[in-house]
């Protein structure tokens, strides 16, 4: 049974029972968060940088039609094949067609969240194409058949021994579980793949509208391999990944590297303005850009949620979220986890039945909004999503009944008094130190991990009436 078949409660129970996962998530998010603080401090006035990031992203999204059109014009002028995909199925179809036309057998991928979003690997593998994830973390979870558990560190939930066990059948011999051995194995293993690849598929951190350039950041160098060696390159981008020009790119690259890993710049920042010039001695000869909508245009048209498109996918909100830090990414059940995943998944997928739990994976503490380098009010969006879900009638029946009962009693003063009096009697067996603990379901769902205040022996309405009488 994979995590996709489990219910939300089952996934949460699994995560809570997995001590390694929880410790690893804590350790990784602590490290990433502290690195970010250091990197943010040394840049000077971080709030000014955040402010600039927010202004740039808002400006881009408010003018997305103009900038996207400019990007497409620039790309097509130079002979890049630009493909527009309304749905994930369209995007998969476009990539499959290119792969088929090229008679490609070996496809190399560097990290792309869009490819996860559209479930591309599965479709290509069904066509008999060998797809290799070349980012170490993505490679690990590809072999394990799991989705990423963190947007920046996708295999953070795996122990080194688990990684060694996954690599051993490929190596054909036992592997020591120390990190340098595992890294060396992947280097050697991947070298052959890089030289054999027919098509390279990459993601896109930013696309520069003015020049028609694609910007990619990686630390391992796999992004460079995938965008240099295969004859044909396909870049997958969400349609909101745009910056107007290099001027704005400076701010966003600084914010991205520092917020994601605490680096001043990632090890490799590559700016591609494809395709290669005819006399260039290397680089792909043919370049395809696939731009995905997948309900992003719906978000664009929804003023309540438009700011969700400002995200630069740095993962900083994951590292401060008390819910993510307890559970890791798999409990969410979605490709994008963490606070931003809880916001965008219901909006992209438009399926409350499947993703309605996500806006509740939050304590609404606001740490995510504070961490966001482009100041997306994430916790506010989560509250609004809860509202949207309720308005669409997708809240559980129990919850609907509870709120109906609440409305009924709170609009009838005498009945309410009577009920509170009864409640004060009924609660007695469960009251310890003036708090309610224990009790039968559904009360126990709450009290198993915390207490409730007891119903006061003398209700406030009575206290108020007595005070008035005394006067």
């Amino acid at each position, binding site marked *: 049974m994979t995590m996709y078949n489990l219910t939300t409660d089952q996934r949460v129970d699994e995560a809570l029972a997995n001590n390694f996962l929880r410790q690893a998530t804590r350790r990784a998010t602590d490290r990433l968060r502290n690195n970010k603080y250091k990197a943010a401090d040394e840049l000077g006035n971080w709030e000014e940088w955040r402010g600039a990031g927010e202004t740039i992203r808002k400006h881009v999204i408010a003018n997305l039609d103009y900038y996207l059109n400019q990007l497409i014009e620039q790309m097509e002028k130079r002979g890049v094949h630009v493909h*527009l995909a309304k749905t994930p199925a369209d995007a998969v179809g476009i990539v499959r067609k290119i792969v088929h036309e090229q008679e490609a057998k070996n496809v190399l991928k560097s990290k792309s969240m869009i490819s996860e979003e559209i479930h591309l690997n599965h479709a290509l593998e069904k066509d008999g194409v060998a797809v290799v994830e070349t980012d170490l*973390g993505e490679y690990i979870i590809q072999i394990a058949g799991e989705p990423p558990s963190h947007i920046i*560190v996708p295999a953070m939930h795996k*122990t080194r021994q688990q990684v060694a066990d996954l690599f051993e059948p490929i190596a054909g011999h036992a592997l020591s579980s120390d990190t340098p051995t595992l890294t060396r194995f992947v280097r050697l293993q991947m070298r052959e793949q890089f030289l054999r690849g027919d098509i390279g598929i990459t993601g896109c951190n930013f696309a520069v509208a003015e020049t028609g350039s694609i910007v990619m950041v990686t630390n*391992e160098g796999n992004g460079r391999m995938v965008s240099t060696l295969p004859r044909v390159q396909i870049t997958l981008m969400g349609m909101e990944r745009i910056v107007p020009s290099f001027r704005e790119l400076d701010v966003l690259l600084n914010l991205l590297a520092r917020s994601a890993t605490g680096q001043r710049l990632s*090890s490799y920042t590559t700016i591609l303005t494809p395709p290669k*010039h005819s006399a260039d001695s290397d680089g792909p000869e043919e370049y395809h850009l696939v731009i995905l909508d997948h309900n992003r245009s719906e978000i664009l048209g929804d003023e309540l949620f438009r700011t969700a498109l400002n995200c630069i996918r740095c993962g900083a909100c994951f590292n401060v979220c008390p819910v993510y830090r307890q559970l890791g990414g798999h409990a969410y059940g979605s490709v994008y986890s963490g606070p931003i995943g809880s916001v965008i998944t219901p909006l992209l997928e438009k399926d409350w039945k499947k993703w309605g739990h996500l806006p509740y994976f939050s304590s609404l503490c606001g740490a995510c909004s504070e961490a966001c380098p482009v100041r997306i009010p994430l916790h506010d969006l989560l509250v609004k999503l809860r509202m949207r879900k309720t308005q669409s009638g997708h809240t559980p029946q129990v919850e609907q009944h509870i709120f109906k009962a609440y409305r009924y009693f709170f609009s009838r003063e005498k009945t309410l008094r009577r009920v509170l009096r009864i409640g004060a009697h009924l609660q007695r067996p469960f009251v310890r130190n003036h708090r309610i603990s224990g009790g039968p379901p559904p009360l126990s769902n709450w009290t198993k991990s915390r207490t409730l205040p007891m119903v006061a022996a003398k209700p406030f309405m009575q206290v108020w009436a007595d005070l008035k009488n005394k006067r």
Partner: protein
Amino acid sequence: MTTTKDFINGLSSKLGRPTPTKAPTPVEISVPQYRLSNTEERVSIFLQNWHALGGKGAIVRSENDLLQSLQEWFRDQPINWIKENKLALLAWDMLPTIAESAFSSLNWPLTRYTQSSLNIRDRYSIAAQAELGVTGSDWGIALSGTIVMNSNPLRGRAISLLPPRHLAFIEAAKIRNNLFEVLHEVSALGTPPAAIEMISGPSRTSDIEMDLSIGVHGPIEVYVVVIQD
């Protein structure tokens, strides 16, 4: 199949207005940028940051300085590499004069990547088997310890990527304070080259238990020589 016009018009309608025909007014950007007062400081901070990332680096003022650094870093390894593979030292077509002359004095023969084979796939194999890639740089960034290289027909992107070691030369005057200054100059080029590679230290990953590991795909060892006039 969605046409570009339909796609863009769809977005404009979501934004509740017609598609703009004129470029939007750019936003004002005012952020505190990192600045040093002179080249000497920039060189020093650039090297300090390059070292912190795990790279090796030196400032050279003469060919003798350069010979000393190269010998200290590589000792007689290049001679042995060449014995095994005569294409072990792979380079751009043109390197700074001081570099050309040092390699010549040391009798470490450089293979020019662009001329190593007529076939692109063969060039990749040659680069993958080489021991050292040697390049120049177009810019450096002091704040992040970064070297920046534009692609062009006399160069080759694979030289700084496939060999396990990368040695880059950079003139001190090309080192800028920050990324903004480099991107400003890139912008002034008009159409950028097919690829601009910004490299900050060796290839690295922390994907297994957040344990830092060097050299997963790109070069494991990186060296930079700053040429001071």
